[in-house]
């Protein structure tokens, strides 16, 4: 394993833990986005650029977006 792969693996473990530890939904959505970004770096480091791109668009963009939009709706309903 190269140094880049080592760093990426450690980052995935670190950010993944942070996602679980953040208790505020909006903050958690941002952490999920960061997790998608770090995960795509890992996929890129292990020579899977196609999967890296998918992880980037789904994990870092689409999923947090859906969570944030749902939160916006739920908050408006609660007011």
């Amino acid at each position, binding site marked *: 394993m190269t140094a880049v792969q080592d760093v990426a693996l450690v980052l995935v473990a670190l950010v993944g833990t942070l996602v679980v530890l953040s208790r505020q939904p909006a903050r958690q959505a941002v952490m999920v986005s960061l997790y998608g970004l770090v995960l795509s770096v890992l996929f890129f480091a292990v020579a899977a650029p196609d999967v890296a791109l998918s992880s980037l668009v789904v994990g870092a963009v689409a999923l947090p977006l859906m969570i944030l939009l749902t939160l916006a709706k739920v908050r*408006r309903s609660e007011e």
Partner: protein
Amino acid sequence: MSPRVRTVVLFAGLAGLAALYLCALHGLPGFGHYRGPYGDVINAAGVAERHVTDMVTAVNFDYRALDTLGEEFILFVSAAGVAVVLRRGREERERETAGGGEEDADEARGRRPPRTSDAVRMVSLLMVAPVVLLGIYIAAHGQLSPGGGFQGGVILATALLLVYLAGSYRRMRRIGPVTLVELAEALGAGGFVLVGLAGVLSGAAFLADVLPLGTTGTLLSGGTITLISALIGLEVGASVVLIATEFLEQALEIRGAERHR
């Protein structure tokens, strides 16, 4: 079962799982040492057979295109499901559109949503054109380099959401009206099936290549791979836009019945 017994059972199970997990880890091939024959066969035959240089795209849109068809319809059904679940209820009504300004009004009376900062508007505006270009590039070059319709489609969808960030929800709706988005989604999903049926009509198998393969390394190489990739891009982009529009409509436009009794 008392809490104590439950804890014992839990840790016994976890210990068993850990043992099996370590055992399985021991049996894994070394890091970076691929064993299976399938990937090697594709790598050796793919370029000559399909005239594409990205083998992942070749597998997704040709060798295992039937799987991709199923996955595409998962997204299609999800978007349809969101549209059905978030449809306007009988008691809900849309914010009066007569004289509706550019600002997105909040549903709570007498309160405006927090203004989008000028910095966000500026950066979003500057990013729209590059993002559109990147999306088209990724979607069109799937047969040559990493990427393809799926990734390109999501990137194109985010371009429309940048319009929402830079301008307003109404402007976003004007650029991508729901009817047009639904049409694009249906066209992408239906087109994939039609390309597959064209293979059957030509006397070969479902999703068999019916188009000229072209010169390897050029934009129009790959035959149906490139066509299916473009259709997937259309379907995925439209699905993401549709889902986001439905959620945004719920958050910004619908007045809940309970507050107007």
